[in-house]
């Protein structure tokens, strides 16, 4: 199908974009990569009266490191994340998960900001933001504010962003010392949205005990889901296969609420969650130990 008619603006500064957004309010949508918005418009699921295309606003795509914080501009394409040496060194968890997002042609256009604002529960980047303690910088035409990832994602396709705000930047700490990472998912075909996905981070102390652990699931509820209790099972302990098994059982049985879809029942999703938790934790622990030496 074809999109319904709309009025099109193509501002060349962020201030102009913000003024247009505050003028048109709920009627308007920001157009970033268009890889979620345009399909929805083609289906007429979305019929915004006004589109504000921010592809010609300069300086919104960058990946920088400043004082152990990585700063990523909202219009940075998924493809730029995939080929960033800085990310591969300082945020390998994020870097490794990007090729799981859609296909090369989609990643060439799709942006990190668009994926986060879209807040699809099955999307990779929202889950990664939770795992990496990201903060998001948003602005309207009078003020700027920072939102922590857990407060940003408030439900299915729903975020804390107000109708007059634009997401500008994502900030995340570089990966801590002695920390290992892992991201895995199961999808029907390469590039499809995952049936289940898990991001794991584990920090191992000098004494061989676990000092920190984080587990985040995607497509496991109405937004990215952190399994805090499962991660806590590992804290302060020497890691064994049995311990990993208990964490995986706890996370997949008690801390996620998958809905199922045409490809997978909720039970199968829980099964996948358990298997993937075991695999990601095992890989993360191994990598943490390698990085200690």
């Amino acid at each position, binding site marked *: 199908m*074809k999109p319904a008619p709309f009025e099109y603006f193509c501002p060349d500064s962020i201030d102009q974009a913000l003024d247009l957004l505050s003028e048109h309010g709920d009627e308007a949508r920001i157009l970033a990569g268009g890889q979620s918005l*345009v399909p929805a418009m083609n289906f007429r699921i979305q019929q915004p009266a006004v589109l504000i295309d921010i592809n010609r606003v300069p300086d919104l795509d960058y990946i920088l490191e400043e004082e152990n914080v990585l700063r990523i501009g909202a219009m940075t394409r998924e493809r730029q994340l995939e080929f960033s040496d800085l990310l591969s060194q300082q945020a390998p968890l994020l870097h490794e998960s990007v090729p799981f997002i859609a*296909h090369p042609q*989609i990643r060439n*256009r799709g942006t990190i900001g668009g994926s986060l604002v879209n807040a699809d529960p099955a999307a990779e980047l929202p889950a990664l933001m939770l795992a990496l303690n990201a903060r998001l910088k948003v602005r309207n035409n009078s003020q700027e504010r920072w939102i922590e990832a857990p407060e940003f994602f408030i439900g299915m396709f729903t975020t804390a962003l107000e109708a007059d705000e634009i997401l500008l930047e994502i900030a995340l700490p570089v990966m801590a010392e002695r920390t290992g990472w892992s991201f895995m998912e199961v999808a029907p075909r390469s590039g499809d949205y995952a049936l289940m996905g898990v991001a794991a981070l584990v920090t191992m102390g000098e004494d061989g005990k676990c000092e920190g652990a984080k587990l985040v699931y995607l497509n496991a509820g109405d937004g990215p889901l952190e399994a805090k209790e499962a991660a806590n099972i590992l804290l302060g302990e020497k890691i064994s296969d049995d311990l990993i098994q208990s964490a995986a059982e706890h996370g997949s049985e008690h801390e996620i609420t998958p809905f199922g879809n045409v490809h997978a029942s909720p039970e199968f999703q829980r099964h996948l969650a358990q298997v993937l938790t075991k695999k990601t934790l095992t890989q993360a622990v191994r990598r943490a130990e390698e990085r200690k030496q």
Partner: protein
Amino acid sequence: MTRLRSVAITVNNQEYKREVEPRMLLSDFLRHELGLTGTHVGCEHGVCGACSILFDGESARSCLMFAVQADGHAIRTVEGLSADEDHLHPIQQAFWEAHGLQCGFCTPGILMSLIPFLEKNLDPTEEEIRHALSGNLCRCTGYQHIVDAVKLAAERMR
């Protein structure tokens, strides 16, 4: 109808100026405004890959962009691949020889996705080839011959 906008879009090294409605998809612009029907439209929501073109040298879905967004940019379509009517591009030649197509509906999108892929890597592994093809659906050839064609093309282009 919303206000028409003027665009100047370079397609296969030739500049075209047109007045378009903002909601016109780039795929429809190429096919209906310019008559370049080599760019196919299968699903119009980004899944099938038949409409893939090059946008400033990188592969993209033309059904997920508006023509107004291409104003001032360079597009390359399957019509721009061969040097002249008598010579196919090495990728096209390889698809012909290795039976990389049957009905050919998916082929333009596949070729346009492979151009930037092979520009970066003329010695791809089978896994890399399959990953590069993951965004293009073929309903009749089966992917094996397509993978063979990519290998043949890479070999010839090295």
